Every structure is written in structure tokens, then in C-alpha cells.
């Protein structure tokens, strides 16, 4: 009980600090320098109508590389966490979600659609809301459905790992290519910017989006699979 009181008190004090932030908060009337720059140069520097994607893939590309790495790391570490513990014999069994005929069949029909949707979201990331992460997450949900529908089926660990590694490595190489032939590490100008608003435009952004999408999808899938598996890899 003492713990609850102490924590409540601490949280309340922290709340006071946050309250001063909220109470004194005034939204900017104008875009600040950084945002104004991005708004003004979205077309000529990155060529992506979706400025958020432009920022993520190019201007703050290093963050995104780091972020992809976070997922890579997470899936690797989860694999480490779980491989070190061997499930005791006899503890394996059916998953807690029963899978029926309907779900299985439905899944088989839906999964290709999901993959298609994912691909669309990824490829249009620089034009409309969406991009590598979102598309990757959608791809992973396809994997998720498969897992739910057929708990005993595995997709090849090695295939996922290879997709993950290959896309990651290519991402790094694309970044380095930017350093060699364009303005710097992760510069999207290694490919022509193209026509503003077209599908294949904005330099390397679609390429990088695809890489991110593949990588994120593979990583999510491998995390999901690691946590779901009834037996250890």
C-alpha cells in the first residue's frame, strides 16, 4: 500500500511538471524554420509529395535506418531469448485460439489481397499516406493471419531471415551509394527525381520504401513467429 501512495505522489509531482508544459503551450502560428524548409523543398530536393515520407526516407534517413535496425535487433534478440529456453517436453499443445475450417479457408483467400494492399501502401508511400513501415506492418499481418489459421504451419525461418538480411544490406549499400554518387549518406538523389507526383519518382524513395517494407514485414513476421511458436527453433 505504501508503494501505491508513494507512486501516486511521484506521478502527481511529475504531473505538475507536465501541467506546466501543457498550460504554457501555445501552438506555433507559422511553421518553424525546419518545417518551412521541408515544405518549400519537398519538390526540388526529394521530389515526394508526402513530406513525411520524404523526411523519413531522406532528410532523417539515418533515423529510419536506425529504426529498421531496432526491429532487426528485436527479432534477433527475441530469437536469442527464446532459443535459450527449451520448452519442457509435453508442454506443447494446441494454441489458445482454435482455428476452424472457415478461418483457414478465409485466410487462404485473404492473404494474397493483404499482400497486394501492403505492396500498394509501400509503393505509394511518397505520394499518399503510407510507406515502408505501414506497408511492412500490413505484410506482417498477412503472416499473422496465416499463423492464426494454421498454427502448426511454419514459414521457412531461413527465407524470412534472408529477406530481412538482404533488404537490410541493400539499404546500407544504397545509403553508401548516395555517398559516392550523390550528396551524402542516404541521399535519395542516386536515381533521378522524375516527375513530381508520379509513382516512379522521388529518386530512390520508392526503392528504399520497398526495402523498408520488406525488411519490416520480415522482421515483424519473425517476431510474431518467434513468440507464437509452440516449439523452439
Amino acid at each position, binding site marked *: 500500500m505504501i508503494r501505491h501512495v*508513494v507512486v501516486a505522489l511521484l506521478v502527481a509531482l511529475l504531473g505538475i511538471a507536465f501541467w506546466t508544459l501543457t498550460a504554457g503551450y501555445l501552438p506555433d502560428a507559422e511553421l518553424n524554420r525546419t*518545417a518551412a524548409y521541408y515544405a518549400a523543398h519537398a519538390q526540388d530536393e526529394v521530389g515526394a509529395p508526402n513530406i513525411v515520407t520524404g523526411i523519413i526516407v*531522406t532528410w532523417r534517413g539515418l533515423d529510419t535506418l536506425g529504426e529498421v*535496425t531496432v526491429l532487426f*535487433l528485436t527479432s*534477433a*534478440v527475441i530469437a*536469442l*531469448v527464446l532459443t535459450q529456453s527449451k520448452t519442457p517436453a509435453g508442454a506443447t499443445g494446441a494454441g489458445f485460439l482454435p482455428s476452424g475450417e472457415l478461418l483457414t479457408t478465409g485466410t487462404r483467400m485473404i492473404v494474397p489481397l493483404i499482400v497486394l494492399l501492403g505492396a500498394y501502401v509501400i509503393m505509394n508511400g511518397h505520394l499518399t499516406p503510407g510507406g515502408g513501415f505501414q506497408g511492412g506492418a500490413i505484410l506482417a499481418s498477412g503472416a499473422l493471419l496465416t499463423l492464426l489459421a494454421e498454427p502448426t504451419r511454419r514459414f521457412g525461418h531461413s527465407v524470412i531471415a534472408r529477406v530481412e538480411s538482404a533488404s537490410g544490406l541493400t539499404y*546500407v549499400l544504397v545509403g553508401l551509394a548516395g555517398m559516392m554518387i550523390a550528396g551524402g549518406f542516404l541521399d535519395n538523389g542516386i536515381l533521378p527525381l522524375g516527375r513530381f507526383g508520379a509513382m516512379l519518382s522521388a529518386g530512390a524513395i520508392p526503392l528504399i520504401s520497398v526495402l523498408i517494407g520488406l525488411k519490416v514485414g520480415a522482421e515483424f513476421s519473425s517476431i510474431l513467429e518467434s513468440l507464437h511458436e509452440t516449439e523452439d527453433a
Partner: protein
Amino acid sequence: MVSPVLILAIGLGTAFALGLLSQARKSFLFLVTLAALALMAAISLGWVVALATGAAMTAEIHTAGVAPPFAINLRVGLAEAALLATISLAGLFSALSMREPLLRLGRGAMAVLLVLVMAISGLVMTRDLFNLFVFIELIAIATAGVVLLSQDQRAICAGFKYLVVSQIIAILMLIGIIFTYHATGSLNIDDIVATPVAFHGAALAIFLLLIALVVELKPFPANGWALDIYTSAHPGFSALFSAATGSAALFAVDKVATYAGDAWLPLLTGIGLLSFVGSNIVALRQENDRRLLGYSSVGQLGLVLAVIGQRDVLGDAYLYIAGGLILSHAVAKAGLFWMSAIVRGRTLTDWAAIRARAPMVLAFATFIAMLVGLPPFPGFYAKWDLAQALVAAGRLPILSLILLGVLIESAYLFRWFGYAIKREAVEKGLLANTVDCGITLAAVAGGWALGWIWGVAHGEFNVLATLPVLAVVAFLLLEPLPAKVKNVLAIAALLGWFAMVVGGYDPMRLIFAAVMIPGGAVILIASFTETGRRIGFYPSAMAMYAGLALLLEATTFFEFFAAWEIMTLGSYFLILRGRMSEPHALSYMLFSLGGAFALLAGFAIASGGVQPFPLDQLGTVAADLAPYVFVLLAVGFMTKTAAMGLHIWLPGAHAEAETDVSPMVSGILLKAGLFGLFLMLMQLGRQSLWGVDLTYVLVWIGAISAFLGAVLAIFQEDAKRLLAYSSISQMGYALFGIALMNHLGWLMAMMFVINHYVYKSMLFLAVGGVYKRTHTKLMYKMGGLITLMPFTFVSVLVGIIAMSGVPPLSGFGGRWIFYNAIMDAGLRLPLILIFMAGPIGFLYLFRLIHTIFLGQLKDPHRKLKEAPAWLVAPQMIFVAFLIGFAVLPGMALQKVDGYIGSIFGDQPLVWSGRAIASEFGYWNPVAIMVVIIVVFVSVFLILLAKNHDAQKVKQFNIVFSAERPYRPETTHFAWNFFAPYRKAMGFLETPVVSTFWGGVTDGINGVGDFTRRFYNGNGQSYAIHVVLFVVAVYLIAMGGVA
């Protein structure tokens, strides 16, 4: 030069590429990992060299081809490059250290390690706030992964606790970042610095960001989670966690502090100091080696944080100081963690196993010296410059806290070293293998290299570039040779050095030099008795002599202090060699370091931050500061001369040391303190504080030391302890003489410098010889050795005649000058004490010769031989010298007398032929000698003639009055020899001082024991600690702002 961004690209690319390689070929995967780490290290080392030599400019790396602040940019300047090199090298060696789990778990684990090293490097390079956050999260996740490489199941709990805290850090940090962005419109650190902050919540935003980074540094007491990691993780990882992650996080704090502004610096200082002192206190009670290293890491990070908090006064020296501390910490801590892999047991005493490997002992010593900040390592230079800057800025309290923390840290580190050298080693306690030993030695090499670099960069004085210190290094390399060869070389080195420098000294320095350098060589003759290789002795002894030699050479404060520390370190290792000397060596080290810190503070006050400050300008210090300088320096020097109150280390240290070490540390080392006192008084003269004449205080301390030292000596049963207490008494005389501040007092003190060296060395050698034959130092177990060890008897006899100050030997000359000096000064009360000390001194000397050499021979001793010739030889040299010096004191003293006269401007002694006259009388040594010899010879002949009347009886043949004595030794006549006096004077023996210092240590230990209950092991409690810490700091900080 290749772009530093390749460091990131290589780390990341290899991590990804590992997934494409075959999982089965694990050793190939491991080689790829190592190659990538080596490449990263090579690139960063290349940048270090290029930037340090000026071949390259600070590298600004723009990503996305857009200039900052609109795209993320990276920077590699000298500081960054050095950190990057440290990080990637630590990663490389840690990968080697973790080879077994890495090979077992395969590519996933290797990839995680690579990403970890990459992320730490990125944290150092990035100039973008949010990018900083991304790298910190990467580090957190990778850490949670690598922790699992440990076989220890508890590592899983530790990893989870760490993740919980990481979540809290992430939340605070993101809020801080986004509001900073809102306030400044930028995420680029350099851009934020340039932008004036308008929004009033900005302070809070900065606070949140700063505190999140500070929590990342595991500040005491919000750090239970980190300690669990240190305890349970693989040591290879702990090395990385401490050396690389910790350093990089500090650098991140530094970056944010740059734009946060000076207003935040006091807060950082406060947190840093609390962390440094607090975790060191808690560490005192640790028995687990890795947890202890964890506390020490936390403490060191706190120290550097405090230095970051002081950057406003450090100016140009900031990088030098902070860098020195960080790199020392990184190398030493990583080395210790790597080394812990070769020790099987996990308690501190298990480290006794490393004793079997001499290079590992050297490594251990190197790391501890680095952590404590002893020369020649970077921490030493950093500590000195830090003290100068802090004192110049009037921040003495901060310096005091830092020094207190260092002292506590050295307490547990040197205690641990003592365990390693002295404790019983368990069977098979060592898991030594080439790889672990190799990386440990690589860290050692790195440490020495850093010491060299910092010495060169210091500009004023490179410790490692001096001839005496090079000689020490040479003796380290010569260790495989037999002891006798090394002994010849050592004597040659000492005599050679003396021949080189002798020409340039004034008479006073010459006397000290003669005692310390050739005097040391004479004592080394006794070391020829030792056989085998005697590992460890020569480097230690030469370090002590190097320190003494440099002390005499020193012309600036810094040189003096550096020499002082080298001497202290060397003598500590020497003393530690004694059989039962573990606790005594520790207390010697602690008192010495405490004294050294007093010197450090005193010098810093005196110089006011001006460097280099010539030693002979000490007298120019401002009049209002001079008394404080006086007190600090005097305390520092009196710690070395073991004045009453600061003496408790001496009896044990001198008594338990080896036979040839006791004379070195007693006969020679104590003189260093006297030398310092001479220098100080010569420059500062009389000073008074609050109306008290400080030299008068010194007179009293001298008199009390002389009296009580003698009183304590007479009650000792152990012959070497008796001699040790006698040293306290003798140094008291010398102190008394110097503090009289008149010509004769100084002359008498100089006389003591020579005499005490000669007769104390001689007596220690003699008693050491007896110990070698009888295997005991307890006097009640001896008796009647006169016939078996006649030479030893002669030297003891001559020694005590000289020491007790009776005619004809030089002791009398000392006394004679001394009484003249007192008459000059006219101090009646201390004079009475000093006079009383004389006869008391005679009592213990009488006991020494009586109980050892006279009386009945004990049965086990019937077949004893004379002490080894090599031990007797130097004693005979001393005997000859004493007699010569008694007859011709003028040969040394007349010059000194003239020199002292030039200081005081008077000439109270008149040297005419062989007689010396003062206003109170005259002394003709030759005449006295002749008279005494005649008297002695006649009495001796008479006794010889009557000797045949004596009757031989067996010892212990009288009945015990029907009692069975449980302690037969109590029936020996020498047992409690001076019991009647004890009745009268026993109260003087009450161990007031020991009780006091015991109370101090018990108190600090108690605090440590109480505080560590705070770490209850519950991850949730640790998270609460973190929030509590944040809220508390918030309240304090906001209170400070308001």
C-alpha cells in the same frame, strides 16, 4: 581518409550480411564479426592520428546531401575520434572475450553485438537530438540482448529490470526532445545552441532531456538495474557496458549540456558528486568482484559528470581533464572486467589466484593505479589540472568531495589488490587462457600508451619520459632475470644516478640525496641474501627510489607532486610484500593518499591555478592564503613522517615488511616527509592562523610524537614494532627541530636525517637477521644470542648507543646540538616533554639489546648461526660510518651549517679544528671518543676477568609454584619487561588515535552497509527509484531556478 560514416555502415552492413551467410560455419561468422570490428577500430584510430597530428580537420558528415539543420549530420572531432577508437577497440576485445557464447549462439548474437558497437559509435557522432534517442534505444535493446550471453540465469532478471528503466528513460526523453523542438524549431544540437530560446517551457524540456540522459549514466542511487547487469552479465559485455556505453552516454550529456547552458551545470555537478561519493561508499561493503566493479563504474561516471558540470571553469583544459578521466576509466574498467573472466570464483578474495601469473598482477596494479589516478596514467594529470582549475575558481568544496570519493575508491581497490597478493589462493582458481590474458594485456599496453600521450600533452612534465621512471619500466621488463643480477643492476642504477646529479645540489639536498640514493644502494646489499627471481620486488623498489630521486630533482609543484605519488605507489607495493602486511599496507596507502591530497590542495591554493609554478616561489603566496597552504602541506608531509595522530599506519607497515624493506621504508622513505617540511618552512617561514603560530603547533606535535612514540615503543613485544615506534619518536625529534625555526634546530634535524637513516637501517637489518635465524620477532622468545650472533650484537650495540644519544657516538652530537637549539628557542613546556623522551628512549633500547642478546639462550636456538653475510655487510658499513661520523661530524655538517647559516643569517656554531663551540659550551668529538673508549675497555677487561665466577643454569628449571602456566612465555623475564612502568604510564598507551581512525572507517562502512539495503533487487522498486530521482532532482532544480 575514409568517411567515418563507414564505421556505422560497416557495423550495420556486417550485421545484416551475417544473416545471408551459413549459420553452420560459426567460426567463419565469428571471424567476419571480428574483421568488421577491427575495421571500425582501424578507421577510428586513423582519424585519431589524423586529427591529433593536424593532418585532418574535424569531419562534418552531412547525410542526405543536405546541410544541417535540415538533415541529420554527424561530426568527428578529436574527442569523438578518441571515443570511437575506444568503443570499437572495446567492442573488438569484448567480442574476443565473449567468443564462447558468441560461437554457441551463432550469428544472431554476433549481429546484436555489432549493432551495439555501431549504435554506441553513432551516439558519439550524431549531432541530432532525435537521432540521439534512436541510438540510445538501439543500445538499450542490444544491451538487453547481449546480457543474455551470460550463462547466469540471473542475467534475465537483470535484463528485464534494465528494459523497464529504459522505457521510463525513453518516455522522458521523447517529451524533452519534442518540446525542445517546439521551443527552438530545430533538432540539431549546434543549431539549438545558436538559437535564442523563447518558450518558457524550454527549461523543463531541457531538464527532461538532460535528466533522461543522466539516468542513462546510472547515477547513484537510481542505478540498481545497472548493478544487476554488471553482476550477472558476461564480463566481456560488462566491459563494453562500462567502458563504451558509459563513455558515450557521458559524451551525449556533454552535447546536451552545451546547448542547455551554464545554468544547468551545478545540477550536473551535484548529481555527479553524489553518485561518485555515494556509490564508492556502498562499494566498500561489496564482496562480489563484478558488482564492486559496477559500483566503481557508476562512481567513475559520476566523477566525469561532475567534471562536465565544472566545464565553465575548466576552459581549455576541459577536454584534457574529462578525456583523461574517461579514457582511464574505460581502459582500466574494461581491463578489469576482461580479467575477471580468468578468475573462477566471484568473491574478491578469489582473485588471489591471479598471483600465480606475474603479468596479471602487473595488469591488476596498472588498472587500479589508473582508476585511482596515480602517475603515470592520464587520470593523474587530469586530477592535477582539475584541482588547479577548481581551486583557482574558488571551488574548494567540490575538490574536497572529489578527493574524498577518490580516497574511498582507493580504499576498496587497494584492499582488493591486497587480497589478491596476500590471501590464500584456492586450488584451480584460475581459468587462464591465451585470449583472455591477451586482451587484458592489450588493455595494460593501452593504459601505458595513454599515460605517455597524456604526459606529452601535459607539456610541463612527462612522468614516463624521466630517466628514473624509465628505469622502473626497464626493471619491469627485466623481471625474468635472477634476483642477484637484478640487484647488481639496481645498485648500479642508484649509484649511477647519484653520480649524475650529485654536482648540482645545494648542501641540504645533497644530504638528502646521499641518504636516499647511495643510502638505498647500501641497503640493497642486504638484498643479495634473496634467491630466485623475487618477482615484483625490483620494480617496486625502483619505483620508490625513482620517486625519491625525482623529488629531489623537482623544480615545480607538479614535478614534486608527481614524484611524491610515484614514491608512494612504489613503497606501497614494497610494504605489501611483507608476510602479514595486508592491512598495514592498506592503511599506509590510505594515509599516504590522504596526505597526498592535502598536498594537492595546498599546492593548488598556493599556485592559484598558475602552471607551471616553481617550487622556490612558494614563498610568494599571498599572505592571507599562506597559513592555509602551510596547514595543508604540513599535514601532507607529517602523514609521511608519521607524526602522532597520523601515525597508525607506521608500526604495522614497518614491522611486517620484509627484512631489507623495513630499513628502506623506515630509514629512507620517512626522510621524504622531512625534506618536504624543510622546503616548506624554508619558503613559508612562520605563519599564524587565528593568532596561533603554526610552527609552535608543529613544535608541540613533534614533542608529543617524540614522547609518546618512545612510550609506546617500550611496551612492544615485537622487536620490529619496537623499532617502528621508535621511528615515530625519532621523527618527532626531527619535526621538533625543524619547527624550532632556528639555525641549530635545523642543523639538528639534518643530523637526525643522517643518524636516523644509519642506525635505524642498521637495527632493522640486525633484527631482520635475527628474525631470519630464529623465525620470530617476539623478544620474549629470544635471549642470549650474543655468542651466536656477535656481529649482529655489535651493530645493535653501536646502534643503540648512537640512538640513545649517549657519548661517544653521533647521537650525542645530535643531542648536543639539540639542547643548544632548545636553549636558543626558549620553549619550556615542549622542552620538558622532549627531555623526558630521552630516558624513555633508553628504556626501549635497553630492552632491545638485553632481551635479544643477553640472558639465557633458548633451547631451540642453540644451533643458530650468525646472520647471513650479506645482511651483516651493510651493518658493518653503518658501524664504520657511525664511528667515523662521531669522530668527524664536520665532514658533513659543516657545509650544511654554512648553508643553513645563509638562510637564517647567523652562525651560532664555531668550528675550530675538531671541536665545535656554541654559546652554551663546546663539543670535541675526538676527545670524547678517546675518553669513552678508555673507560669501556677498562670496564670490559674487569668484567672479563671476573667472568669465570659465573655459574651456568638451565632456563625454565625453576618450578612454576604448582601452577601449570597456559602461556609459558609469560614466565620469561623479557615478557612484559616494563610492567612496573606500565602501571605508571600505561594510560599513555590508550589507543586514542587508533580508536578515532577505527571509528571513522567503521562509520563510513556502516553508512555503506546501510545504504546498500536500498537495492532490494525488485525491478519495480528500481523503476520507482528512477522516478523518485527524477522528481527529486526536478524539485531541487526548479527550486534553484525560482
